């Protein structure tokens, strides 16, 4: 666990005494026999244990999943989309997609070029002004994407891979120092791009209608139902402000080319 934290979170400042902490979480061994025999760990949120325990070697993924759960269930000052978010030149690109569509891999690829990481999993759109707020935590990678991301460059740090989790083999990429340092810089959203990786696929890119995109994003949001009118207005503002596209691609190179064309064009 400490190895995972020092690999993935070295650029984060520690909390001082007498500070306010949004969510107190822990990952710890349970009391009793499962501390020693086939050891397990529990995720707890301020003393409550929302999930079943996992094998101890999955402590790090459990922490990340637990944090995602805590945030997506409580941070209702944001409209939360299940999406990666990256930024360049003060403008954010939101990449909403269901698991398995290659969103995190593409996100890792982009932030190792010239994009800043805001999040690989949670687009936090502030209700008060419609800006996207960064939460630059480790990027979650699964199965084959782990090797692809390790190969992206020598600056890339990927933590220990964890086999046989509920989602297959899982590893996390350390967020770039620059992204962590600029965590309090919220950004205007400019593009929504729905990515879809297709093995050996050809590149295709098409513009999407705003109303269709709105409906898709409603389904993609974690808390649209909680926010009511505020969620409707915030999502409406987001869709109005953004160019919206769908891309499908068979390699990261194809995706980079398409995204460059969209965002520089």
């Amino acid at each position, binding site marked *: 666990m400490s190895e995972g934290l020092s690999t993935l979170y070295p650029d984060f400042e520690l909390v001082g005494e*007498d500070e*306010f*902490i*949004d969510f107190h979480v822990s990952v710890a061994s349970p009391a009793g026999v499962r501390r020693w025999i086939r050891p397990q760990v529990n995720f707890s949120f*301020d*003393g409550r244990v929302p999930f079943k325990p996992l094998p101890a070697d999955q402590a790090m993924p459990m922490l990340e999943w637990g944090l995602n759960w805590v945030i997506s269930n409580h941070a*209702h*000052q944001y409209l939360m989309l299940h999406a990666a978010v990256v930024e360049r030149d003060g403008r954010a690109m939101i990449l909403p997609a269901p698991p398995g569509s290659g969103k995190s891999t593409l996100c890792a690829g982009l932030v190792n070029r010239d994009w800043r990481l805001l999040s690989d999993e949670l687009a936090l759109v502030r209700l008060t002004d419609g800006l996207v707020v960064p939460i630059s935590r480790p990027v979650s990678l699964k199965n084959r994407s782990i090797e692809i991301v390790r190969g992206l460059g020598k600056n890339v740090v990927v933590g220990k891979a964890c086999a046989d989790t509920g989602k297959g083999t899982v590893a996390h990429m350390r967020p770039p120092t620059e992204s962590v340092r600029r965590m309090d810089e919220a950004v205007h959203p400019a593009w929504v791009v729905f990515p879809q990786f297709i093995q050996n696929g050809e590149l295709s890119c098409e513009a999407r209608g705003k109303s269709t995109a709105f409906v898709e994003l409603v389904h993609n949001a974690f808390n649209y139902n909680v*926010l009511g009118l505020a969620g409707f207005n915030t999502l409406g503002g987001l869709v109005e402000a953004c160019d919206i596209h769908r891309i499908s691609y068979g390699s990261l190179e194809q995706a980079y080319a398409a995204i460059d064309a969209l965002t520089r064009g």
Partner: protein
Amino acid sequence: MAHSDLVVTLLREPGNAANLSTGEWDVLVRQARHADVMGQLHARLSDAEQLGNMPEAARQHLETAWNLSLRHRLAVHWELLGIADTLAPLAIPVVLLKGAAYYAAGRMASRGRLFTDVDILVPKGTLDSVEQVFIRNGWVPTHMNAYDQRYYRAWMHELPPMQHARRGTLIDIHHTLLPPTTGVRCDAAALIAAAQPLEDAELGVFKVLAPSDMLLHSATHLFYGEFDRALRELVDLDQLIRELGAEPGFWPATIARARQLDLLNPLHHAVRYTHLLLGTPIPEEVLRTALDPSMSAVRQRLLDALFLRAFRPDHASCNDAATRLARWLAFVRSHWLRMPIHLLVPHLLYKAVIAPHKEEAAAQ
């Protein structure tokens, strides 16, 4: 200030907000979340114009809870419309209880509150037809195993909760306020007869308990209950007393009613502990009245030791050994009150020994 009393103290004295340190806010927000009173706390701090007197990060959590409570109000309203449609053909009196009643009657107690289900009270003779009409309209009985079904139907004051198949919402259908096994002769027909209509025409099918009865039910629910959300229920009581108690004649009428319904004991507790913990205004003559003549000084001291701790939030910052013991004793006490020993012992044995096996077998 002792950390264990932070949230209770601030509910009582919202003007104190500016005196708390950032570290105290850190504990306080978590206590409020555990006790499920964050929205209610927001309402009190807002009334006292204190929302500017706290760290921005803490305010954010309170505001989120407040906004969530507004959303719950819409959801409850929508749910009530569905229930009204379902029950209208029966043309029977339907009395809303607890949170849904506070909301429908526009009571202050509904402000900031979250709702987990809708509770209704119907005449006992109509239970079968009410259950059938809910099933025909998309509600599904929960607790389907034979033991739980018998537990509810033979011993409890309500049917097993029903859940709407599509919306996932829960409804509790009561025929009286307390399990018959408590031995309290609470006359449900008198409560239904005194119930009052709602102003909102959309919700015209429903009534709510008359003011004294509403307070008595809230007190009964807390002091005969399992104490798992005790502080939230105490805040409900405090808010009801602040609002209803200001009406002229409320207290004499409530005391007379409690005597008639055999509910003086929960009224005594409600008055004592809202006043002690939340500073609820109670007229001097009510505080001096021996509401429960069976209460000896020794017994009162013991109950104080129990309750004053058991109301603390179930949070690490409050969990010294004595508080944990008090919480456990309050839970045991509720079962003791709810069932005579010849029923209670077999019930607890069943729940401890047989039910886990059955659940495991069912899961496989």
